[in-house]
């Protein structure tokens, strides 16, 4: 049976990515460990993404609050606004929006960087100089993306809640202490923990897709552009798929 080209490409890509992920796990825990490069990547991937994540988080919190206010007023539940925004940000909007911003910034930059290294033979140069390029380039980046996204999500959530506090005070008057008391009273560990855990999977997906696309880049500069673009598209799609699976699992364990 001959499959249509689209399906064949899809299966090729899925198989390739699965093998690449398998290779990651087989190499990640074996010495030699590239610890200093991992720290450098954490700085680039984590610290340098902070301004973008912070700004989008702030705007998201502020806009969400201002958009929700009229509806909450119409239900006579204006006082519940901080609690509702807090739950929405911590459980869903914060992790997913931050992960999507992260996919756009980090996924594309990893895809383009490794892609251009591939087409200009820099990866080969690393290999012939006796350095394992998979460990040095892929393992460090995937690890850094996996460990940095949860940190960014926590910081993004905090800035987002601050944005929400500003949003509440544009049309009303609520003290800082009261706002955050209402937010934290409404939140429980079950709201925070599953949302936090899924961000590790989001980070891993962004890292592995970016590295896979970059590492398998070809056809010169056009291929580099395509790697960067498809890194963002595929990792964004994976973020939604992981989110969908996460909500089912959370529901299964009765954490809703």
């Amino acid at each position, binding site marked *: 049976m001959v499959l249509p080209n689209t399906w064949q490409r899809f299966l090729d890509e899925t198989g390739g990515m699965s093998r690449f992920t398998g290779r990651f796990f087989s190499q990640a825990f074996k010495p030699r460990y590239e610890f200093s490069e991992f720290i450098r990547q954490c700085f680039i991937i984590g610290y340098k993404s902070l301004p973008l994540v912070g700004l989008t988080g702030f705007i998201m919190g502020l806009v969400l609050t201002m958009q929700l206010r009229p509806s909450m007023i119409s239900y006579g539940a204006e006082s519940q606004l901080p609690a509702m925004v807090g739950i929405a940000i911590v459980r869903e909007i914060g992790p997913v929006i931050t992960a999507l911003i992260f996919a756009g910034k980090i996924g594309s930059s990893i895809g383009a*960087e490794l892609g251009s290294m591939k087409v*200009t*033979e820099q990866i080969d*140069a690393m290999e*012939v*100089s*006796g350095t394992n390029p998979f460990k040095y380039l892929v393992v460090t980046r995937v690890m850094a993306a996996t460990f940095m996204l949860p940190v960014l999500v926590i910081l993004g959530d905090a800035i987002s809640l601050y944005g929400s506090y500003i949003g509440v005070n544009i049309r009303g008057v609520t003290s800082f202490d009261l706002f955050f008391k209402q937010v934290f009273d409404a939140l429980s560990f079950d709201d925070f923990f599953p949302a936090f855990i899924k961000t590790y999977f989001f980070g891993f997906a962004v890292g592995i897709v970016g590295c896979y696309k970059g590492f398998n880049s070809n056809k010169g500069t056009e291929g580099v552009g395509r790697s960067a673009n498809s890194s963002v598209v595929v990792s964004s799609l994976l973020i939604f798929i992981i989110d969908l699976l996460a909500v089912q699992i959370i529901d299964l364990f009765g954490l809703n």
Partner: protein
Amino acid sequence: MQAEETILEELKPTRLPGKEMALSITHLYKSFGDNHVLIDFNLQLNRGENVAVLGKSGSGKSVLIKCIIGLLKPDKGSINILGRDIEDLSLRELDEVRTRVGFLFQSNALYDSMTVRENLEFPLRRHWIKLTTAERNEKVTEVLKNVGLVHTIDMLPAELSGGMRKRIALARTLILEPEIILYDEPTTGLDPITGKEISNLIMELGEKYNTSAIIISHDINCIHRTADRIVMLIDGKCYADGTYDALKNNNDIKVKQFFE
């Protein structure tokens, strides 16, 4: 077939008996699907010798050099580098051999995100980990002096001209003091004057560091300056093997066309 064998026989160089072998390739085959790139290819490189592999574009020269360094796996045949068969080596052992073999890429393959200093320090940090910072700086300055580009130490590769990038790539190749250097089209894309400078530099540094070299090229001027011996790669085989003068004076049509 008979004619090809005769040419090989006629041009076979007189190697010094007992001279130590640096690299030996025997009965090498490599194909990509139906495209048979290397067919029973043989080559020997003695210590201190520079051998040029001359062939048309797409004749398999780069495939050959990538098989030697282990970036491509040959279908059949053996490659012995510095007394070790590379197909028998573990990844760790292969890496160890690779530190004794330098590779100058056609595209230079300098790391874009690193300065010249970081590019040169990279192999040192990976393999000569016991060096102190002062020793590392000294080593970097020494190779940069050898290629005449000390002033570029804190520049990025993107800020350098093509010829300068080639020199820095050469400096990076030399920094671990390899015993064999593989040059992949060292003068391609350079103007004739810079090409000549690079060829002279290859000779100078080869003598200074006492390296053996395989130079892949179709630039006959570069080959004339740098090679002790030329191997012609035609139709996937070692078609002819001899000195520049011997090949230049040969009447075979396939050999002659490179010297016209």
